[in-house]
């Protein structure tokens, strides 16, 4: 589904990703861990198409298409979804209107008619229940005045609405209390299926108790320095990142 080859990315002239490589197949869950400032969020933002990230070399193929030929919104319509680390507040735009625009943009891309109003509201209710969101949120402005946990639940709700092929979760667990974490993880788990892939970026192993990954990668200095199964996350939890830093001191 996703193939990243020798990806190099800079921001404001400073190189962040260095010869980054990763293959994700349909239905797989990959977790990327690593200390702060190693390029985890840069990877997610680059894949989603944020413009200030400059791709200096390398390629990314998503479902047989060159990702860098597509704008951010095209990528989303093709099935990439980024759950933001810091979801943005949009005063004056209700969650309902926002989702209506997004769902219908995707439907148009697929050659479908805009969704019937009744069906749309039914879909909203169903997907909000998935992350235990109160229905009053649908009429409130997107993320405005939401708590940290509510914002993250809103991200997963949007993901459920848009049914993407590839979900990028950028530190979705950071700042969440255990109840919110459980709700968010449950929401994600309900969306798992054989055709949908996940790239879960996290600083902490805790999330991976709830969203159990097929592969765990450790990033350091802009590349993956270690890969393994879910047991690698446990080792990191016990031993911290110091041994990774020591083994890869030449990278920074």
């Amino acid at each position, binding site marked *: 589904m996703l193939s990243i080859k020798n990806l190099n990315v800079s921001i404001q002239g400073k190189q962040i990703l260095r010869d980054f490589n990763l293959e994700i197949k349909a239905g797989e869950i990959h977790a990327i861990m690593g200390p702060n400032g190693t390029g985890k969020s840069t990877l997610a933002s680059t894949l*989603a*198409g*944020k*413009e200030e990230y400059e791709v200096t070399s390398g390629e990314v193929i998503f479902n047989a298409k060159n990702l860098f030929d597509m*704008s*951010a*919104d095209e990528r*989303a*319509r093709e099935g990439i*979804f*980024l759950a*933001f680390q810091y*979801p*943005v*507040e*949009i*005063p*004056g*735009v209700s969650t*309902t*209107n*926002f989702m*209506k*625009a*997004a769902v219908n*943009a*995707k439907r148009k*891309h697929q050659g479908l008619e805009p969704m019937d109003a009744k069906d749309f509201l039914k879909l909203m209710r169903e997907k909000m229940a998935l992350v235990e969101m109160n229905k009053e949120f649908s009429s409130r*402005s997107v993320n405005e005045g939401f708590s940290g946990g509510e914002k993250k639940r809103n991200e997963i709700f*949007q993901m459920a609405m*848009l049914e993407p092929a590839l979900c990028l979760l950028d530190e979705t667990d950071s700042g969440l209390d255990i109840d919110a974490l459980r709700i968010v993880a449950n929401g994600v788990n309900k969306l798992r299926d054989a055709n949908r892939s996940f790239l879960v970026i996290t600083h902490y192993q805790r999330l991976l108790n709830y969203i159990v990954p097929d592969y765990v990668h450790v990033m350091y200095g802009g590349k993956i320095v270690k890969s393994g199964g879910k047991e690698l996350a446990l080792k990191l939890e016990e031993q911290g990142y110091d041994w990774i830093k020591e083994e890869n001191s030449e990278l920074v």
Partner: protein
Amino acid sequence: MSFTENIAKQFALIGNTNVAELRKNAFTAFEKLGIPSSRHEEWKYTNIKTKLNEQLSLTPVDSQVNTAVKNYISSLPPYSFRIIFLNGVFHSELSIVPQMKGLTVCSLKEAFTSNSSLVEKYFGKLVNYSEEHFAALNTAFVNDGAFVHIQKNVLIDEPIYIQYFFTASDVNAFAQTRSLVILEDGASIQLAEDFRNASNISVQYNHVSEVYVGKNASIDIVKLQLEVSNAIGVDTLEAQVERDGKFSAATITFSSPNTGTGKALIRNNVTARLIGENSHADLNGLYFGKETAHIDNHILVDHISPNCTSNQLYKGVLDDESTGVFNGKIFVKPDAQKTNAFQSSKALLLSNEASINSKPQLEIFADDVKCSHGAAVGQLDENALFYLRARGITKQEATQILTYAFAHEVIEHVHSKPIRQFLCDRLKDELKVNF
């Protein structure tokens, strides 16, 4: 013949005897003032003098009701009250004025005779025609307009819709229209004044609204300038608010509808004088500029008495080569202790050629007051744009949605539900937002 000479010749011909002394004084003042050039401090960024042609005719021209007028009237919500003027001439056959106890709604011309004592008491008493060029011209020449009088403690909960159409049957016509609105103590009303170019050539108009708000009375007035492409329009709104009174005004200007060009020069002067204790003024504005449109909002809130509050929220969206002016004055007179006055002006510039001149002006002569002002000019929030695009919404649609959200805040301040809904739909239409 110069502009002033041309106008003097016309004044000699009108022979209007109502409030003749006042009109004569206003005319003498205008002869002295003339049309302001951009050397005048209050007209620095709005060069109207070069835009008005010197052969303008102030004689009202009655015209045929055209299709554009008919179509627009049929597109309006079913208001119970509607008064319609064409090039400054009252059209009773298009108007709907039901009788209601405690309320008088008629043409100003009719009020000159039927309500002469009220007209004599109030007409021309709020505008400062010795200094305001266009108020002087209007006071001298106005032929007709709307007259609204509400008796003590009468509450009208349906909006009164006053429609001024301009159809340019004579390209030199410079329509002088006027509304006189008097609320006795404890009265309450909602009112809309809608100005519209119903032709595809250029029109000129100069409007004055005088609004008297009695003790504990309240008024919501909405100025609609939704179809003013190719118009040169000056609009002066003067309000005086007595003790515990509330005055709320919103000015909504769309220089360019989906069809038509954005060539427009609009100047709005809004003045609220808080003469009674514990009175309140809420002055809001929303303007959209396209092509070479120029939209100028000059606001003055004059805090004269203690314990009064005022709020100003002006928002603009300027595209292409359009220009905006915001001049917001707050005066706090020595007696006006415990004043709370706020002002905010925000403009979105959607193109590199669009610009705005924003000037807040606070003059405070009392010591126990709270005043604040803020002016912001910028582009749409990049992070918000990316967030929408990351959900599959195209850049163009994301821009439209965020602009809608920015503008909608002003419309939320319009109290009248049918007018607010009408504006909301118009805004969606303007921005092609379909949710």
